């Protein structure tokens, strides 16, 4: 029990923070929001999966992936393919030239199910695919990059290009993927209608519990020896390498884990929203996931959930009322977070909460107690004169 308490929850402070988040998303939101808004929050929480995956990969591993949308999309599409096949039984598609295949295939003159769609008739296979396809894909990318010591900005650019490739491919191969509209008209999951309010409520709770589970699992990973190594690698990669560790294997592992986490979010997204489209795969959604993590605090598993919720509420609110202001605000947010709050909401919380007596017991709850030094390091980096090494040039 003590092991679970220390490792999965992160000790007293961590447990408290997770409990507060759990109360918020499991009790307060369902009690006070109507079905429509709750479904919206559910959608935001699926993005939080991607944000949590970025805490592992970017916050702790120092590897910025601008292609988390790829994995989110792979998970989402896997789920959508299963649901679409279930929705296109021969009975309900009898007006098509070829009954029993998804409608968009029929529109694009396909007369039989493509081979890669066939396994998705099985629910077990789909669940496995949601986990395995992204991790295998991430393994291939990670293996070929990290083994050759490609990192930093190069890795970011290449993951971004992969996001572009996948988007162009999905949009271009309309007959196989549903094209720009994506896979729509999803109806039932093993006979259970997912469009009803009660199903949406149930899916919301499943989603929220999964998210809490993923956060705890991530906490477990980060409090392990592996988490320590990850942090060490981020700060002084060579020193870890010289100590005899194979740095690239750790990077590949954390990349695969983050891919799976994002994919679970994608699958839950499809279930709750009822469709999946390339607009959740490409550059823009991938970079938005990074901003969720940056706003919440890239070092804080709990903080990014709040960051995701905040940015998305802001986005929805602003794009309803002042659509043209939203991009200004989003852009400004990017710049402000990077320049002034590199630790995001969690950083602000850790800085100011100790000054309020009432909040003091909660402080440091959002960052891992064992890794306190790490956020401090980022802060010190940002306060150092950037040109300190070039002072000599002043004369």
């Amino acid at each position, binding site marked *: 029990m003590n092991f679970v308490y220390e490792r999965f929850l992160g000790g007293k402070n961590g447990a408290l923070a997770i409990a507060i988040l759990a109360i918020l998303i499991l009790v307060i939101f369902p009690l006070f929001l109507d079905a429509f808004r709750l479904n919206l929050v559910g959608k935001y929480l699926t993005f939080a999966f991607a944000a949590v995956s970025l805490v592992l990969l970017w916050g702790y591993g120092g590897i910025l992936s601008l292609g988390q949308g790829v994995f989110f999309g792979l998970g989402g599409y896997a789920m959508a393919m299963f649901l679409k096949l279930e929705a296109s039984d021969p009975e309900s598609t009898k007006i098509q030239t070829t009954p029993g295949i998804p409608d968009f295939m029929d529109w694009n003159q396909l007369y039989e199910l493509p081979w890669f769609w066939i396994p998705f008739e099985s629910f077990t296979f789909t669940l496995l695919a949601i986990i395995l396809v992204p991790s295998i894909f991430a393994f291939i990318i990670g293996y070929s*990059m990290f083994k050759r010591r490609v990192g930093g900005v190069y890795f970011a*650019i290449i993951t971004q*290009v992969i996001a572009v490739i996948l988007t162009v491919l999905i949009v271009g191969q309309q007959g196989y993927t549903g094209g720009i509209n994506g896979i729509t008209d999803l109806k039932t999951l093993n006979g259970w209608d997912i469009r009803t309010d009660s199903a949406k409520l149930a899916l919301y709770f499943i989603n929220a519990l999964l998210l809490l589970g993923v956060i705890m699992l991530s906490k477990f990973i980060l409090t392990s020896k592996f988490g320590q190594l990850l942090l060490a690698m981020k700060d002084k990669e060579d020193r870890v390498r010289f100590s005899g560790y194979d740095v690239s294997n750790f990077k590949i592992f954390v990349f695969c884990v983050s891919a799976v986490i994002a994919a679970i979010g994608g699958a839950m997204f499809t279930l709750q929203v009822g469709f999946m489209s390339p607009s959740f795969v490409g550059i823009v959604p991938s970079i938005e996931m990074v901003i969720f993590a940056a706003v919440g605090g890239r070092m804080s598993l709990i903080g990014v959930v709040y960051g995701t919720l905040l940015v998305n509420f802001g986005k929805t609110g602003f794009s309803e009322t002042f659509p043209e202001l939203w991009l200004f605000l989003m852009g400004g947010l990017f710049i402000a977070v990077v320049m002034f709050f590199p630790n995001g909401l969690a950083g602000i919380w850790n800085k100011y909460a100790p000054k309020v007596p009432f909040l003091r017991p909660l402080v440091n709850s959002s960052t891992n107690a064992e890794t306190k030094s790490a956020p401090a390091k980022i802060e010190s*980096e940002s306060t150092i004169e950037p040109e300190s090494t070039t002072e000599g040039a002043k004369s």
Partner: protein
Amino acid sequence: MGDFSLQELTSILAMQGFVGISLFSVLLLMALGLAIIFGQMGVINMAHGEFMAMGAYTTYLLSVMTQTYFPELMNYYFLIAIVASFIVAGSFGYLTEYVLIRHLYKRPLDTLLATWGLSLIMQQSFRSFFGAREVSPTLPDWLMGSWMPTDSIFIPINGMFVLGLTGFVTLGVFLLMYRSAWGLNVRATTQNRVMSGAVGINTKRVDRLTFALGCGIAGIAGAAFTTIASTGPTSGSLYIVDTFMVVVFGGAASLFGTIASAFTIAQAQSILEFFISSSMAKVLTLLTLIIILMIRPEGLFSSKVRK
């Protein structure tokens, strides 16, 4: 492919190749600026496409102004527009470096995010100011029409003009970087910032001017861009990923590599486009690039540096 005779195929290759040349010119102009910024300073400028759009809008504004106030000068305004685009985008780049970039040199990944934020703001400014619809300047008469070396080959004049401009700018960049005292300072700063500072190079100033120069060249790319396509608020962002691939593929610090890789990528894409759909051409090109980069992560041409 069997339906084409040999002569037709040659013409197709020549014309499609020339479409590739126009793409090559814009990609190269964009990539030159980016390669200077990324290769020399290690800064990822995600707003580079928007600096290009800024140049394109400057050209458009000048065209409208000339048409309204000095219609008799319409034949010459384009040359002024090229210079103006350089100056406008360059000065804005100078300002950006001063306000934003210089605080983030130690954190390259964060520069990427901050410049992405900047690009969002710039895109929205273009949209608020010029509208969401695409605009294009009225081109002078001498840029119109096409040149026909044989009966079946049409080569547009504007494409040739852009190619010439690209050659001119590339030569200029080469002279500046490799044959001038300032270029020596830039290269010294790239190699060893601390030591360059110690021998009296004002590295801050070098950074600022390098960044401004890169953005200015993006502005020229924008002016060139208006002759082959119309400009919208998101025109720049369409090219940014391709441009990054050009720079990374060519080897970041190599001018020759940038040229070669821009040529390869543009030609591969536009010749493939004729035979398979343009989306598949793009997928194939990018996929091939990634596979090559996995085998040779340092790019095609790069100086051997131990990291």
